[in-house]
């Protein structure tokens, strides 16, 4: 693609790209930066653009740029200052507070809470927390990128933990009843699947791979 052709492409689609960026990232300056980043990435990968699909291709790049921006902003907000010093981010999964909370939860209660989640969290949690699929397998099953599935799983665990904490504040006696139940074994990957205890629910896994 020549510089002249690329300039024409920018002129034609700058409104679309800026609109997508601005609708996903409300700050106009950040949206404009993201729009520029989008076109720069498009220039770098111009050879890979399918002819006649420039609109969808640029829209996808803009959505990706906005997603990365929102994801890092969300992660910054969710990380408590000082976590880096304590090494909490690199702690093994068994020391992850969300994981510990879910492990202490009864299996029946975990199932209820997972099945009450909304999309896009229901499918990843159902596959990974209840049916013990590895994230890569779950991502292939529901047709989502593995990184997306992992971040959805992390957010879902935070939501479940926040929900539990809220319930404990409202009904403090519930803490005792959950402790009496057998704990949910999240680390025993595939054990239940091998024993044939996987439930065949009616919830769709989204886009199944062909």
């Amino acid at each position, binding site marked *: 693609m020549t510089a002249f052709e*690329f300039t024409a492409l920018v002129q034609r689609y700058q409104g679309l790209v*800026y609109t997508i960026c601005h609708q*996903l990232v409300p700050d106009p300056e950040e949206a*404009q930066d993201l729009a520029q980043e989008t*076109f720069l990435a498009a220039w770098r990968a111009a050879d890979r653009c399918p002819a006649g699909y420039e609109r969808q291709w640029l*829209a996808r790049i803009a*959505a990706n740029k906005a997603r990365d921006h929102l994801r890092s902003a969300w992660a910054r907000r969710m990380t408590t200052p000082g976590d880096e010093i304590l090494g909490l981010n690199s702690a093994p999964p068994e020391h992850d507070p969300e994981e510990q909370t879910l492990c202490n939860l009864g299996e029946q209660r975990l199932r209820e809470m997972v099945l009450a989640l909304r999309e896009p969290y229901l499918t990843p949690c159902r596959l990974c927390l209840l049916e013990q699929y590895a994230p890569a397998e779950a991502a292939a099953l529901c047709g989502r990128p593995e990184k997306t599935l992992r971040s959805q799983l992390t957010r879902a665990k935070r939501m479940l933990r926040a929900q539990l904490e809220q319930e404990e504040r409202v009904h403090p006696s519930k803490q005792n009843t959950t402790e009496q139940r057998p704990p949910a074994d999240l680390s025993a990957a595939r054990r239940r699947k091998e024993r044939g205890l996987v439930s065949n629910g009616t919830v*769709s896994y989204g886009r199944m791979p062909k």
Partner: protein
Amino acid sequence: MELFRTDGCLSDEGLQALTEHKLDELGRLEASEHLSYCDRCLDRYTALLTGSRLETPPQDLRRPVMNRVWGQVMQNVYGRAMVAGIAAVLALTIWGGGMRDVILHRDSAQGHLPHTPLLEAGESYGHGPVSKAYDQLFEAWEELMLPDRQTNDLRN
């Protein structure tokens, strides 16, 4: 308002809310994650962005984008030129530092090389005959590279 349908795709109301700037940050993050891999929803979404729904950027993007593209191209060109320049300077330095004579007169110099003992099978590094052999090898190189040393030593 449900942002997602039960099949995992964005709902019509969700897309509408997105175009009207009514989603909160989590909703926008979820929508962008979904749009980054779902072709159907991306098509539905871009189909909504026509006519008056398209926003105009506060500044024409052509100039800043082309400036950045130009900067990147120059960075690549200058980067390669700099690597080539450093390589040329290094080559000239090595060439002018005496290696030229060694390379050009290698055949004649080989005749002056003293016998260098070879490492025998089973011999190990460290003390013993191997380290002596290396000492002799280095001495031979010193004689070759610093031929005036002996005369200087004699003068002193």
